[in-house]
Each structure stands twice: as C-alpha cells, then as structure tokens.
C-alpha cells in the first residue's frame, strides 16, 4: 500500500503558529468581556470529611460579591457518571480529598473573590481516609462510596474496588512449567500529573432563560456541552461552547472541573463569570493519572522464548468510581506473541483527586512492570534484549493478549530499526547503562464532523470539531489539500464551536489525525463529486464522464481529451452561476484505528555517590503508519519520551499521613526542565494502517509507554541493582547502592 503523496510527508508551517509565536493566540484565560465577574473556589483542607455545614452569609455580605454557591445549588442528575463528575466539581455532603471544591464565589474582582473565600465558614467532621491502593483494597478500609463495588468480586477486597478485568488465553500453569526461568516481581508507581502548563480556565455566561455561552480550555467542547447542560438542566442546543486554544491537556482536559461551577455562578449572578485555576488547584483538584501496585510473573526458556506471563494490576484512581485499569491489562503484554497469558486488573477508589486520562492511560505503568521483568530475564539468561523481544514479538496474525488478532503492525520493524541503529552499538561510559523497552497503544476512531466549503476564490475553508492540541489543524489541512489536489496554503482549518459543526468526540486516544482525517477525505470526496458535476454541466456531458485528477476535473471515457482540465479554482469561480456554493461535509464514526508500537533506547548515567540519574542519550522508534507532518510526529514522540522520563525519575504525588498533597506546585512536582534532557532522536517507522486511506495510525500516546521501563532498565544496568518502584528519585537509588 505504498502511495505517492504530494503534500503528506512534507513539513509546512502550521497555520496557527504565527499567532502562537507572537502572543496573539487566545488561550482559556485570555478572553475577557465587559462586566464579567471573577470566580474563586474554596477547597477542602481535609482528605475525607463530612461537610456538617457551610455558612456563606458573611461572604455574600461582602461588597462586590455577586454570587456564592455550594453543592446544594446543584440539583441531582439522572446519569451516575455525570453525577460523579458534578460532585467532583463541587462536593455534596462529603469532601473526598484534599482540594475537593466545597464552595465558590463570583465577585467584581479577583481580590474581592479571594477575600470572600476567607469569609465562608465550613464546619467539617473529619473521617478516616486512605490514599494507598493496597490499603484501600483491604477489607475494612474506609470506603469512598457504598454500593459500587465490582459485582464479580468477593469479600476479600473492600468496597473501594470498583472494577475487575481479566484478559488473556492459554493456561498459565502449563506456560510456567515450560519455562527454564520464572521471575516474579512486585512494582509500585506513583501518581503523576499531566502537567500541562495552562491551568484550567473558562468564561461562562448563562442567562436565566437557559441560553449560555461558554469559552474554555478543553480537549472536547462537545463533551463539555453535554456534561454541563446535563448538570445545569438546560438544553444542549442552548449552550454554545467554544474551545479556546488549549495549552496542553494530555488527557487531563477530557472532563470538566470548573465549567459547571462557572456556569452556575453566572446563572446565579446574572453576569459573565471568569474562572481560572491556580497551579496549586490544578495539582490538588484536577485529575492526575493512577498510581499502581503491580505483580508480574513471566517464564522464559533459555533460548529466550516467553512461555507464560501473568500480570496483576491494582490501580488507584481517586475519589470516585472509574474504569481505567482495563487499558493497562490490555496493554501489558500487547508486544508479545504468547500462548499462555493473563492480565488482571482492579480499579480502586481512594481519598485522592479523581483520576483522569493521561496519555495512553493505564498503559505506561503496566508495560513498565512487564518490560522490567523481561529485561531481568534477559539479564539472568544472558540474552540480548532486542533479539529476545524479536523472538517473542507480536506481528500480523498474532492473537493479541487482549483478544483481537493483529493486522499489519510495526513492532518487528521498530525492533529491527533499534537493533541496526548506531546507538545500540555505541560504547558505554562508566556508571552508565543502556535500557530498552517496547510500548504499545491502541489508538481510536470515534465520532467526527467535518464541514468543508469551496470558496469562490479557489480556497477552502474547513471546520472541524476537535480542539487542536498539537498541530492537528496543520495535518488536517494537509490531508484536505492532498485529497483535493491543491496547495496546502489554500486550505484553512478552524476548530468550530458547538453550534457551527456537528458533534465530535473528545480529542483523545490519538484519534484526531486518524478520524478527522478520514472525515476530511470523505468531505473532500463529496466536494469533488459536486465539482465534477458542475464541470459536467458546463461541458454538457454526463457527470459520470468526469474524473478528478491533480486538483482538476477532466473528461474521461469517450469524452477524454474533449475539454482541457478545469481546476478547482475555475469551478469555484463560477459556482454562483452553476448551482450555488460548493461544499462537502462528512459526519461519521471511523473505526479501524491501527495500533502503534514503539521501542525506546536510553543511556543513563547514575552518580554512584548521590544516586542522581542523568539521561545521556535517547532514541525512540515508533510505527506511525504514515507521518502526515513528520516534524509534528517527531514532536509527539519526543514529548511523550520526556514525560515518561519525568515519570520514571522524579515526578510523583506525595501524600503525608494526613492525606494532604505535599507538593502541589512545579517547584516540588518536578517535571523535566530543558537542562535535564539531551536531544531525543525520533525514528519514524511507517507500516501503513490498512484501516486508513493514507495508512495513518495515531501517534500521540505510544511514546509515553516505553520510557519508564527503558529508564528503569538503564538504571538497573548502570548500578547493577534493580529498582521496583517509580519514581527512581536519587534518595531511593542511593539507598540501594
């Protein structure tokens, strides 16, 4: 399926770039309207407490305060998932974690709003709390919500255990009996935050008549509309949501945290309300990803064949029911062709902020544990880590550990590229180790809407419904131009608000370039069909006798050569006289998103006297199907690698005995800074996805999956001791040296 492309694979300047380098781009907190109020949220200082009473009288009496709300202002909703979202935005009855919202104020200025918060009197009765996953699963642990325990589980686990999943095939006992070496290990990983630099921000204006406008930083403004209209009990059609430029999300902006609060305050005050989280609030009250406790058992023959593999994943996902461990259980062994395999997972609630997706949610920690044990087996049996992975690699026709049989996939190609790369044979300095890990992500399709207008001047206006989080307006414009056969700069893609184009799912799951791309191609085909029809009319021949070649209509069949080709611009120029405006649109739910595999290789140096780990060299290989805009594909790979490095080395949510978060700021929640990292070489592998006309696979998430184990394996080789918990911060490393 090798195709020749004119535009795909080139590196044009992204259309929104100019506004972003000049400071013009409007992000969530950048919009203001006259007469707007400023809102602030009061948050619980307790990990778990009954809210006995809230007295807002003094705050309401403060000059300049226009509205104060608490959980009592929100009427119940039917859908339980929406109710949990609502109660995460504003506690009702109980505060479930440090940072849980308990009241909110809208006032004429930020200063007055801040002053008013101090006047709200909340009486709490503290309750027992639990923040560790293993403790939360024990019978007798404080239970966050009654009646939501997974229905197949028994009394051996507490009511916090809201999900149980199992995947796999074969017979584990048989598998392990065939092994020459079996290693069984337990791992722990800390909760980490998406760490987007832009805090959540919105500007809400909701009238008493139920008509509203909402501007917000989100990965999915249709999701925001649906959730908010349900919580506010208004019609979806009456709430128009506009997605601002989004300053990073990585999954963290796939739900709402503040929007219903701002809308409710606006409704109550009768004025627009701007609500912006502080960084401290982002860490305490917006969703990090899960922490985990994991058991892995893998058996291998002396020759390196994996004979059996078992994973038990216990994920901690915060204060409300959630489903995410299944993604880890499905990902854990995806890279391997196994006869006997089982991956089990438990979703567990604790007194922490409700988890939300973080780039390949659930996969990095599961794969970290698996790839650590695979590495240890290779070490013990004296096997080459890449050869061993090649020997066991999943490929086309492999029945995956989670069920489906793989179509064309690029794991073997990525492993072979890694093996052939000069990095793999480069000599290592003292105190330095080289780590390898595979990684995997599913990638998704889902609902999309694209509307494309062919303008009279020969340009194309494209509206789509997915917030552009990493350059998708560029890739979509490129695919439109490729499909139409015109130049890239003739297309302008914008992200429409919820009133201007049909529903679109959230920007997540590495789905946008894939799914919006398919819709764009189909919309282009619809427009092409119409343009061919117009040309046929002009030429007075059958529409079927016209085909679209290189951006122009041309007669075909027995009319071939009768008329010179008529370009898109020419057809567009006369469209007013040939039947009116020309457009194409497509609404659909593309499936068949191809999975993506990556292989990361890292050299780490560990200071034996301090336990400090530095990343000396990093190379990432990833099958992306077809790189539409290779520079942004590289950027996705590099960015995921950097996030994974942070996860491996220094990032963690630190809770004290009191259940309070101790590091809600960038000073002590340590994401990698520029001087922490070397250049990250991204090697793009292209094994086309048979499910996409251009071969595209999602590429945004796979890259965060391998770094955890790659770095951990590198550290193990550098110091000769293996660590079983993340992050591998210097005190932990020095302790084992």
């Amino acid at each position, binding site marked *: 399926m090798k195709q020749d492309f004119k535009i795909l694979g080139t590196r044009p300047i992204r259309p929104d770039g100019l506004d972003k380098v000049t400071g013009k781009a409007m992000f969530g907190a950048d919009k203001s309207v006259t007469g707007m109020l400023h809102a602030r949220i009061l948050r619980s200082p307790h990990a778990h407490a009954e809210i006995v009473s809230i007295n807002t009288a003094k705050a309401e009496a403060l000059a300049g305060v226009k509205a104060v709300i608490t959980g009592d202002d929100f009427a119940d909703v039917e859908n339980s998932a929406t109710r949990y979202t609502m109660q995460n935005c504003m506690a009702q009855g109980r505060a479930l974690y440090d940072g849980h919202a308990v009241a909110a104020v809208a006032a004429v200025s930020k200063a007055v709003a801040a002053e008013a918060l101090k006047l709200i009197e909340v009486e709490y009765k503290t309750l027992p709390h639990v923040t560790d996953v293993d403790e939360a699963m024990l019978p007798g642990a404080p239970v966050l919500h009654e009646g939501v325990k997974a229905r*197949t589980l028994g009394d051996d686990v507490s009511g916090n255990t809201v999900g*149980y*999943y*199992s*995947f*796999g095939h074969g017979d584990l006992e048989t598998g392990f009996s065939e092994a020459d070496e079996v290693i069984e290990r337990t791992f722990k990983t800390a909760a980490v935050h*998406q760490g987007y630099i832009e805090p959540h921000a919105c500007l809400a204006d909701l009238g008493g008549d139920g008509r509203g406008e909402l501007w917000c930083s989100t990965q999915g403004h249709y999701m925001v509309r649906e959730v908010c209209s349900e919580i506010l009990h208004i019609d979806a059609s009456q709430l128009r949501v506009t997605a601002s430029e989004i300053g990073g999300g*990585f*999954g*963290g902006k*796939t739900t709402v945290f503040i929007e219903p609060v701002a809308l409710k305050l606006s409704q109550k005050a009768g004025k627009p309300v701007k609500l912006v989280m502080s960084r401290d609030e982002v860490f305490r009250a917006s969703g990090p990803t899960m922490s985990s406790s994991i058991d892995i058992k893998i058996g291998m023959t002396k020759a390196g064949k994996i004979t059996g593999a078992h994973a038990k994943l216990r994920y901690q996902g915060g204060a409300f029911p959630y*489903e*995410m461990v*299944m*993604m880890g259980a*499905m990902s854990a062994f995806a890279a391997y062709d196994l006869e006997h395999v*089982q991956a*089990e997972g438990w979703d567990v609630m604790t007194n922490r902020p409700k988890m939300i*997706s*973080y*780039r*390949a*949610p659930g996969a990095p920690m599961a794969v970290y544990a698996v790839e650590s044990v695979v590495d240890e087996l290779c070490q013990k049996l004296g096997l080459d880590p890449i050869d061993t992975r090649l020997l066991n690699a999943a490929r086309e026709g492999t029945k995956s550990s*989670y*069920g*489906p*049989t*793989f*179509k064309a996939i690029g794991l073997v190609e990525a492993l072979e590229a890694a093996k052939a790369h000069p990095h793999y044979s480069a000599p290592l300095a003292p105190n330095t180790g080289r780590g390898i890990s595979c990684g995997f*992500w*599913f*990638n*998704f*399709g*889902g609902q999309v809407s694209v509307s494309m207008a062919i303008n009279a001047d020969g340009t194309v206006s494209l509206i789509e419904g997915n917030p552009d989080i990493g350059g998708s307006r560029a890739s979509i414009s490129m695919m439109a131009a490729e499909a139409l056969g015109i130049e890239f700069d003739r297309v302008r893609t914008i992200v429409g608000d919820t009133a201007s184009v049909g529903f679109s799912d959230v920007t*997540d*799951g*590495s*789905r946008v370039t894939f799914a919006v791309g398919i819709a764009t191609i189909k919309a282009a085909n619809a427009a092409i069909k119409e343009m061919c029809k117009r040309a046929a009319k002009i030429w007075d021949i059958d529409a079927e006798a016209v085909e679209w070649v290189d951006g122009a209509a041309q007669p075909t069949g027995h009319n071939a050569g009768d008329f010179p080709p008529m370009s898109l611009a020419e057809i567009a120029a006369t469209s007013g006289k040939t039947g009116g405006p020309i457009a194409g649109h497509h609404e659909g*739910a593309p*499936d*068949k*998103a191809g999975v993506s595999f990556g292989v990361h290789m890292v050299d780490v140096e560990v200071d034996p006297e301090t336990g400090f780990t530095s990343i000396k060299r990093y190379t990432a290989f990833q099958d992306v199907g077809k790189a539409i805009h290779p520079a942004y594909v590289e950027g996705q790979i590099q960015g995921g690698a950097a996030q994974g490095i942070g996860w491996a080395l220094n990032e963690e949510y630190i809770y004290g005995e009191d259940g309070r978060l101790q590091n809600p700021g960038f000073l002590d929640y340590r994401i990698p800074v520029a001087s922490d990292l070397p250049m990250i070489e991204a090697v793009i592998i292209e094994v086309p996805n048979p*499910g996409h006309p251009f071969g595209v696979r999602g590429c945004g*998430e796979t890259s965060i999956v391998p770094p955890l184990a790659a770095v951990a394996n590198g550290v193990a080789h550098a110091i000769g001791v293996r660590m079983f918990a993340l992050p591998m911060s210097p005190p932990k490393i020095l302790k084992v040296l």
Partner: protein
Amino acid sequence: MARVVIFGSLRAFTGGVEMMEIEAATTRELLKKLTARYPALFDTIESGVSLAIDGEVFKDAWFTPIGPESEVVIMPLMVGG
C-alpha cells in the same frame, strides 16, 4: 456464523464460556443475540463495549457488518488521553 470471543472477566456473566458462534449480520444483531443468551451481560453491553472484528477495532455502532466467517472479540469500551 461469526465466532464470538468474550474477554476474560466478562466470562463471569457467560458461565465461563469464552467462545461461541452467533449468526449475525451486524453488530447490533450480534449484541442483541448475545444478551438474549446471557442476560447477565446486559449491563456491560448497555454501558458500551468495543468490538474487534477480524482484528480491527470498532465501537459498538449498530450497523457495522459482520462477515459469516468473522471473528468478533468483545472488549470493554476503551478510552484514551
């Protein structure tokens, strides 16, 4: 007849049955017949599942065609970041 594979923990609702054959032309028909056979599956299927049809992953849209020889794997509804 399509070969239907139920993912591990869902087998708790099929009495441990992992694989079965179901005559269905579309996903809707398949899921209807599946819940008719195993009513305990209703809640899970109602709240949403993903299906892998011959190795390609689909959401549970009703009218996705299923071939007579297809392998259909029922999986949980997947989410991303």
